[in-house]
């Protein structure tokens, strides 16, 4: 071993100890699985929420390819609360890159025209600046995927990126919808193709079936602005309410249940959540499982 090689090895060893020890220790301390941050700006709330969960590196490893699924589905500006807050998305993109992600891909199978929605919701603009690869969804990118255990859907067309990526982060916006609300579970409809309207009958079973094969590693719910009425399309500022809240967690049922709670709906009345809970996808009892709450202002 020559001197140069010795120094190099030494440096690498020291570095990995310095960087690695807190990580190993960190694994022993338990981080919460559900957090709620309130009364901040979108970006700072995202940072805080991820910190409280134990840092983005709890979810994203170096070299991961990350698929980020916000809602870009409607041709409305962010103020209309039809699409996920772009600053929130941009912050999560930055965090992913800080954790060493190889790339962060953002896509959504939109309801309005894709180019109009992508332009108007500002996510490609802001998240693009943060380094995300924002892609359009094309018909030839869907893979017919069997759904093991599916009660309504035996297979469906699912976007190939769901299977190509290492990690999936779901970032829905909390909105009114005819079933009550739309949140994390419904967000996965942006990753599927085919005749999507068919999913609606019966809604609860189908949406749960989809979530059997599309499993996010982390769900971050944007309730900075929520859409109270005329969702999910929106279009009227009077229907928008500023809650300045975000929810983040690893249990997608529980996150949606708490989203329902802050929206003002008893999660036990939502068929899809009850079904998801009984299918063993997560917890629905909001009294038993409480989030760790942080509020920016007093």
């Amino acid at each position, binding site marked *: 071993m020559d001197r140069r090689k010795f120094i190099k090895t030494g440096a690498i060893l020291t570095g990995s100890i310095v960087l690695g020890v807190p990580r190993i220790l960190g694994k022993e301390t338990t981080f919460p699985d559900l957090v709620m941050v309130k009364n901040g700006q979108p970006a700072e709330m995202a940072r805080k929420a991820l910190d409280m969960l134990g840092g983005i590196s709890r979810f994203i490893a170096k070299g991961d390819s990350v698929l980020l699924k916000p809602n870009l589905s409607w*041709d409305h500006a962010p103020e209309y609360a039809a699409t996920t807050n772009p600053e929130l998305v941009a912050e999560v993109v930055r965090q992913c890159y800080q954790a060493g992600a190889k790339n962060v891909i953002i896509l959504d199978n939109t*309801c*309005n*025209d*894709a*180019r*109009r929605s992508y*332009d*108007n919701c500002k996510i490609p603009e802001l998240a693009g600046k943060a380094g995300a690869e924002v*892609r*359009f*969804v*094309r*018909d*030839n990118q869907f893979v017919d995927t069997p759904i093991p255990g599916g009660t309504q859907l035996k297979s469906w067309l699912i976007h190939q990126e769901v299977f190509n990526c290492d990690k999936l982060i779901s970032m829905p916006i909390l909105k009114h*919808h*005819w079933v009550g609300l739309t949140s994390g579970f419904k967000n996965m409809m942006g990753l599927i193709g085919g*005749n*999507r*309207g*068919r999913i*609606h*009958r*019966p*809604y609860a079973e189908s949406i749960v079936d989809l979530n059997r094969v599309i499993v996010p590693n982390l769900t971050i719910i944007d309730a900075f602005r929520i859409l109270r009425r*005329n969702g*999910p*399309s*929106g*279009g*009227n500022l009077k*229907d928008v309410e500023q809650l300045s809240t975000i929810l983040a967690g690893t249990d997608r049922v529980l996150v949606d249940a708490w989203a329902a709670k802050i929206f003002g709906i008893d999660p036990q009345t939502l068929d899809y959540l009850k079904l998801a809970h009984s299918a063993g996808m997560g917890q629905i009892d909001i009294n038993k499982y409480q989030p760790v709450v942080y509020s920016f202002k007093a």
Partner: protein
Amino acid sequence: MKIKPLTFRKTSQIIFFLLFTLTVFQATYPFKPWLPPELFLWLDPLTAITTQIAGHFFDIVFLLALIVLLSPLVFGRAFCGWVCPLGTVIDGCDHIISPKKPKDYRHFRPIKLIILSAVIILAICGIQYAWLFDPLPILWRSMGVIGMTFLFLIVDTTLNGIITVGIFPDTMLNVQDKLSGYLFPVANPDFGGLIAPLIIFLVILGLSRLSRRFWCRYLCPLGALLGLVARFSPLRRIVDAEKCTACGICKHKCKTDAIEPDFLTTTKSECILCLNCQRDCPTDAITYGWRSPRQMANRIDLSRRAFIGTGITALAGAGLLKINKIDPRRTDRLIRPPGALTEDEFLERCIRCGECVRICATSGKCLQISVLETGLEGFLTPLAQFRRGYCEINCNLCGQICPTKAIQPLNVPEKQKTKMGLAIFLKDRCIPYRLNENCIVCEEHCPTPDKAIKVLSREFIDPVTGQKRTINYPYVEESLCIGCGICENKCPLNGEAGVIVVREGEERLQA
């Protein structure tokens, strides 16, 4: 080295063709043109004359057409030879398929004058039909609607192929997305009635099989119009009679058969100043120069008898087109673009250029070129077909781009209140009514800020199982519906949707 005059002509043709192509490429969402897509149509005197006569209106932009209309007073029919992009396309086609020994079709020359008189007489009768023969609208719809669709298909299929094979898939995906950002929609529009305009275009190109520039020589009414003015042009072909050996090469090379059998005389209303004769003259006897217009003014090819015959035929044709007017009871599904004028005014103004259809193809994709749905008089007019697309709530581009304001330019808030029609539920098809199951995809997509599609929740007791369930039955709040058709488009049924848009309650504007 001296640049040959012919090089100037070819350069000019290429430049104007590229400009025309640019106007086509710019007719896309996001609509930020630096060269108006309507430019060539505003410059077209035939469009300007017939549309304004038929529609009884004056629009200041059509003063641009005076440039082209009066240009022959100086340059003869140079517009046809140097500018007209359809002429350039035909030239290209001539290179490929024109016959070595063309027959003599000189007796067809008056046809273009007959067509010209006919479309003007029709316009006076209030029927705008010039677009069937007008080269610029023809080329615009051929390139804009058919050409762009094919181009998209070719580019997209190629890129998809490369991605599938795996050659730089990420880069290619980026290329595809960048193209989608600027030029093409993400997915190709689903066009129905392309076959009619395609046939017209292919026939025009195919005519080159008979002789070079057959269309321009014998059929084009715009050429005929410019030819009438060109009779007074001082710029013309001059033959040095002493040098001329009467070899006949010039007559053979002439694109428009404008050279008379003596090889010295030129028919100015035919000559498009292509300069082929000058280039190919073996003794350099031919030049182009200025002479008093008095010399060699040609008589008009159209005899009085033929003109009167044309007039009578055109009037009869006008009657025929009006007879064909369709029964309003059959038109309940024929939805015009938002902001369209009342049907009569709309037909008087619409020049079937296809600009609205093109730009809609990059946005909501509902506008289609109709064939005979609205009768002969409505041939090739735009119709919204909601099973193929829908009207985007925030899009007003068809009205922005219409060169004759047959679709009035509305701003977005105005357009969002303009009713294209009314959605009605077909309860024999709609899933909640027919099967007593929840669906409500239409309600979900309904874009009006206060949703026009509302739901009524009712208990339903399954007669077989006796189970109770709550079903949301959709209905339309008439005062809120703008007939954008997204409900019909997104309805998950195959075939006819459970909710359709009808003309009832449509708002048509007055000019």
